[in-house]
């Protein structure tokens, strides 16, 4: 700005000097013109004066000639005429010379005086007319008037002869004086012309300088324009100005075109720019905000802090005919002039990658936290148990994978698939929760959610299952991570003893490899941990009493564990009442859950019993009706025993709200299926308000192996 100001001043000064020079030149020309006119008249006068100079001797000669002619009685007419002409011209020229106002020559005055004194002598001569001679016999003689005429001529001739020298000198002096004057004027004119030429040169110089400055200025402006254009072309943000009508100005950066996929911004309103790209409520807020920027109520910092477009989610063309979500960051700056806000400068940047990166970072952070939690959780789990869980889960996930791969075409087939997936997932989740491996439980829960969503759909296709495959892969990767961590933990724990290979990493032995008579891992700690967690999560108080679980033969450990986890969860969610309710029913504040495993004949018997609310056949029937598992007619015809069997139907649950522990409607279905799979039996007995008891009978372990195989 300052440079431009100084430049402007310099140009003003130059222009002023130019004008002054032009004025000087004009004045010089005017004065020159006047001088030239003066010189021209001086020259005329000089000519006159030069001529006048000759008159006295001409006059004297003519008078002499006239006298001689009179004396020789020759014809005088022509000489008289010539004299009269000369006198008239002399008088005329002298008068003209004297009329000049600036002609202040004393010599001229003297000459005039002399003429005035002399001219009366000439008057009678010039007045003479007629014939000066009279003819006589002796020849021609002067007449009387001729004699008078002759006397006058002689007197004038004599006087002229006497004075011709003086008059000539006087007139010569006048001529010289005129010459001096004229040459002085000529010298002045020369000076003036020189001045004029100099002024013209200076003017030309000033014009050249002005032209030069202007060219330099234009070049600078051009360069500045070019730089602005380069900036607008290169900058990665979209820049534009908004006017008081919230419309975009005529200049914007090229990035804006890339960001919005259009190029017709000039005059476009801010509202139109965002229309169709953001939800109406966001658009309304944005427009209100822009209006606020034009007011003076809020200062820049405050406006910045309430900018609703700091991270704007928009839907944009992805260049392949589809839409994609992008994140834009708008910044606004007021451009303030003398009369308040002139414009609002907007900058827009595409921060999609930043937002996604931040999310990734957050996810990574959450994962890291989850891993730490997991590690802490794992440290409390028996390595053998953990290994067994990982094996079971992996098998379960392989099963899920197999279900996903199963070919299906009809809706019924798809739904059957969903049912199978649900049961497997539910079972894995139960175990993970029991071991307090929440990162796994949550992932499985998420998969369950996906299945639930699909179940609600009216139509299903193979593509609907694709997202699940991805999630499943993620879960498998997570499991591998857990296994790795378990290995490290075991290595850490076993380091001093340099013990046998870590249990968690061992390959799952096939049932055939397991000695039938050998008992497997002790599942008591898992159950106790789960009971503790369930009690806490559901705010229930109950005691878990376990007996005989150490006797569970290895082939049954997984089944027994699955069944007990499911039944324990059912008890905690549905069975055991809140302490206040129990008190009101004159029951002990703390509930009791008993688990007993023992040999029974050739096989085994597992009894699970809680002293909770029991199961009301009517509640079961109502729930089954709601879920369209049975019809109203079937419900009406159903006896207590059949009604109780409803809890083993797939997709049945009395819990309306879906939680990690209940409400999915798989669970007892999984338990029953597993038991039947092993060739066992399951039964339930209940007394509403008093207890629920499940009894599972399992065949001898060898029989189970063959049943599974």
């Amino acid at each position, binding site marked *: 700005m300052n440079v431009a100001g100084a430049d402007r001043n310099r140009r003003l000064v130059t222009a002023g000097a130019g004008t002054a020079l032009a004025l000087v030149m004009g004045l010089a020309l005017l004065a020159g013109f006047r001088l030239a006119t003066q010189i021209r008249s001086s020259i005329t006068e000089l000519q006159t004066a030069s001529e006048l100079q000759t008159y006295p001797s001409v006059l004297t000669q003519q008078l002499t000639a006239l006298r001689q002619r009179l004396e020789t009685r020759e014809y005088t007419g022509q000489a008289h005429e010539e004299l009269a002409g000369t006198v008239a011209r002399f008088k005329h020229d002298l008068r003209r010379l004297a009329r000049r106002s600036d002609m202040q020559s004393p010599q001229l005055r003297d000459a005039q005086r002399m003429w005035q004194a002399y001219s009366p002598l000439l008057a009678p001569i010039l007045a003479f007319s007629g014939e000066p001679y009279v003819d006589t016999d002796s020849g021609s003689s002067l007449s009387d008037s001729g004699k008078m005429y002759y006397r006058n001529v002689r007197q004038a001739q004599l006087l002229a002869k006497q004075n011709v020298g003086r008059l000539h000198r006087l007139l010569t002096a006048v001529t010289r004086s005129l010459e001096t004057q004229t040459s002085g004027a000529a010298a002045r004119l020369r000076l003036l012309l020189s001045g004029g030429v100099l002024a013209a040169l200076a003017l030309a110089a000033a014009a050249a300088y002005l032209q030069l400055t202007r060219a330099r200025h234009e070049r600078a402006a051009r360069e500045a324009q070019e730089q602005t254009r380069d900036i607008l072309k290169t900058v990665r943000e979209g820049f534009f100005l908004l006017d008081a009508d919230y419309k975009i100005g005529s200049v914007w950066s090229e990035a804006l075109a890339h960001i919005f996929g259009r190029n017709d911004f000039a005059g476009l309103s801010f509202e139109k720019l965002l229309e169709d790209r953001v939800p109406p409520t966001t658009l309304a*807020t944005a427009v209100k905000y822009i209006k606020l920027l034009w007011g003076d109520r*809020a200062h820049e910092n*405050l406006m910045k802090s*309430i900018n609703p477009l700091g991270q704007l989610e928009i839907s944009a063309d992805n260049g392949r005919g589809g839409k994609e979500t992008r994140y834009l960051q708008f910044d606004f700056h007021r451009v303030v002039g003398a009369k308040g806000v002139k414009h609002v400068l907007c900058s827009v940047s595409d921060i999609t990658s930043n937002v996604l990166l931040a999310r990734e970072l957050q996810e990574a952070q959450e994962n890291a936290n989850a891993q730490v939690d997991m590690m802490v959780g794992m440290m409390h789990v028996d390595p053998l148990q953990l290994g067994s869980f990982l094996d079971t889960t992996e098998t379960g996930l392989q099963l899920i994978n197999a279900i996903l791969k199963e070919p299906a075409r009809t809706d019924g087939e798809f739904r059957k698939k969903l049912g199978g997936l649900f049961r497997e997932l539910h079972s894995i989740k139960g175990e993970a929760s029991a071991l307090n491996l929440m990162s796994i439980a949550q992932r499985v829960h998420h998969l369950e959610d996906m299945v639930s969503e699909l179940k609600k759909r009216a139509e299903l296709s193979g593509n609907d299952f694709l997202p699940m495959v991805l999630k499943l892969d993620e879960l498998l990767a997570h499991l591998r991570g857990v296994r790795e961590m378990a290995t490290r933990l075991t290595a850490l724990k076993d380091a001093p003893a340099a013990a046998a290979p870590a249990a968690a990493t061992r390959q799952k032995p096939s049932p055939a490899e397991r000695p039938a008579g050998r008992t497997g891992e002790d599942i008591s700690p898992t159950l106790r941990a789960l009971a503790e967690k369930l009690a806490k999560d559901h705010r229930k108080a109950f005691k878990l009493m376990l007996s005989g679980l150490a006797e569970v033969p290895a082939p049954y450990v997984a089944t027994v564990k699955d069944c007990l986890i499911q039944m324990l969860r059912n008890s905690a969610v549905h069975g055991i009442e809140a302490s206040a309710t129990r008190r009101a029913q004159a029951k002990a504040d703390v509930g009791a859950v008993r688990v007993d495993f023992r040999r029974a004949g050739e096989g085994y018997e597992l009894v699970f019993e809680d002293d909770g609310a029991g199961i009301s056949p009517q509640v079961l029937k109502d729930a089954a009706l709601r879920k369209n598992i049975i019809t109203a007619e079937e419900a009406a015809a159903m006896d207590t025993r059949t009604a109780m069997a409803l809890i083993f139907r797939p997709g049945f649950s009395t819990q309306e709200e879906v939680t990690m522990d209940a409400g999915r409607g798989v669970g007892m279905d999984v338990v029953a299926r597993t038991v039947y799979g092993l060739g066992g039996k399951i039964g339930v007995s209940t007394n509403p308000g008093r207890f629920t008891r499940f009894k599972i009978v399992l065949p001898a372990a060898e029989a189970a192996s063959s049943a599974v195989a």
Partner: protein
Amino acid sequence: MSAARGNGKGGKRTLKLLIVDDSNIIRRRIERSQQLEELEVVGTAANGLEALEMFSKTDPDMVTMDLTMPQMDGIECISKLVQLKPAIRILVISALADKATAVEAMERGANGFLNKPFTDRQLNEAIAELIT
């Protein structure tokens, strides 16, 4: 609702401040932590209706305004206060962090916005900015 006694600071003119918040703790907190000499707390109110009542009694120059309050919320109260006294300066102090709410409040006539929770320094800065 309570009308605080004037502390009678002499000299230059003091500005009267009305504190509106449904939380007693927050009201006390603002009252205690504002340290500007030119401000005098003339009253407190727990909702929009009380605020209007206190306004007619105390004619405050400045108001700190919560947004989520029973009976009459802050947004509505701002509109009414600005209607009654266009020159009033209103500082919104709210836990509602979304920008749309802030823009809405500003559009209705608020002059400043402070998010809860806030530090004493943030409060004093926000009030000082409103005075200037």
